[in-house]
């Protein structure tokens, strides 16, 4: 039961991207098409689960003064493996993702979860937590990726959904969706939506406006 909450909590309620502000960097760059977003999610989830498992297994033998560098080296080695696998079997996709697969190594989701969870918990629950966070991250990536591909190209995973004008249909693709700003707007809107549905996540502002009749003096 506890494992189940560890798994489901980060998917929406404690989402790493929209609540903890972790790992936004790669979340936006690779989402121009859904296929790239899914590949990136799979790579990140795989690295995150493996890194959490390894670090949690050796957590009792890890002196705290060098724990950061050890974590970084473990994560970077796993990322190199994933990168080489992509280059060997999915060469075109690895060209499209360019440096962003390597940048998983400095993705704050990975270090954040290993540092705050895997160092204090048993391997099984750490890996569950990692899987949950990976899925939460993937959810955001897949939502943004599908919106951008659908409105930018009129396709989903390469299959035509909205027939574009070029192919004799009616849909005029929106080039803005493929540019950088749209990713920021979409993520901002998504944060707004999630926080409207779950008012607990709303941040308290630094300065509160006071209605005029309550202003003293």
């Amino acid at each position, binding site marked *: 039961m506890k494992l189940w909450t560890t798994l489901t909590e980060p998917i929406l309620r404690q989402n790493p991207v*929209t609540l903890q*502000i*972790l*790992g*936004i*960097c*790669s*979340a*936006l*760059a690779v989402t121009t098409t859904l296929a790239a977003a899914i590949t990136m999610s799979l790579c990140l989830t795989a690295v995150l689960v493996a890194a959490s498992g390894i670090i949690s297994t050796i957590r009792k033998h890890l002196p705290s003064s060098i724990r950061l*560098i050890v974590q*970084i*080296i473990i994560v*970077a*080695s796993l*990322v*190199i493996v994933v*990168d*080489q696998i992509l280059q060997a079997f999915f060469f075109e996709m690895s060209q499209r993702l*360019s*440096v962003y697969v*390597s*940048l998983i*190594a*400095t*993705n*704050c989701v990975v*270090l954040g979860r290993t540092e705050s969870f895997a160092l204090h918990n048993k391997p099984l629950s750490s890996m569950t937590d990692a899987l949950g966070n990976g899925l939460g991250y993937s959810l955001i990536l897949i939502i943004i990726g599908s919106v951008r591909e659908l409105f930018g190209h009129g396709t989903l995973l390469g299959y035509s959904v909205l027939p574009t004008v070029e192919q004799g249909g009616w849909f005029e693709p929106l080039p803005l969706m493929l*540019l*950088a*700003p*749209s*990713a*920021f*707007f979409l*993520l*901002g*809107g998504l*944060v*707004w*939506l*999630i*926080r*409207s549905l779950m*008012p607990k996540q*709303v*941040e*308290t*502002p*630094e*300065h509160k*406006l006071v209605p005029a009749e309550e202003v003293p003096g």
Partner: protein
Amino acid sequence: MSDLGSLFIRSAFVENLPLTQFLGLCTFLALSRRPGTAIGLGLAVIAVMGVTVPLNHLIFQYVLAPGAWAWAGLPEIDLSYLRLLTFIGVIAAAVQLVEMILDRSFPALFATFGVFLSLLAVHCAILGGSLFMAERNYNLVESTVLGLGGGTGFAIAVVMLSAIRRRLAYADLPDGLQGLGIAFILTGMLSLGFSSFAQMTLP
């Protein structure tokens, strides 16, 4: 000369790290609440990128690149798959070194942006700069310019965002947009502005 100038403009504005390449967004959003901290962070990024990108270039070219060991009779050795691990190590070491030098020689400067330096050891913008350098085969001078330009672009963007957020501190926003939500929308608008630099080159 004008090649280097346009490379600088390109890396600072056209390929602005946070706004068009999405690199370094974590610190970009987290530390842009006040202009003072934003300026400190910006300066630290310029300093660290200016040092690490050329350093990584030297190491990449003379140790890791395919054929770099030809002088030792081992022309078939290709260590380039190790570049990620090496770059991270070099960046962490360089950050530590810059920190120590600043602490010793310029204590006032260290007090302004010393705290951000240790954050920068795992910063996607800095690692990204080095990886782009390796992918595009720049030479030493070009990689120095790329490092400085990328850092300058990051600094300009983060100072601009912090100035806008400062203004918005007194605005009456919808609850859900408070904090992170509005920061994303502002970043999107800045990014829209920066995309107008796309066609810019030096005459």
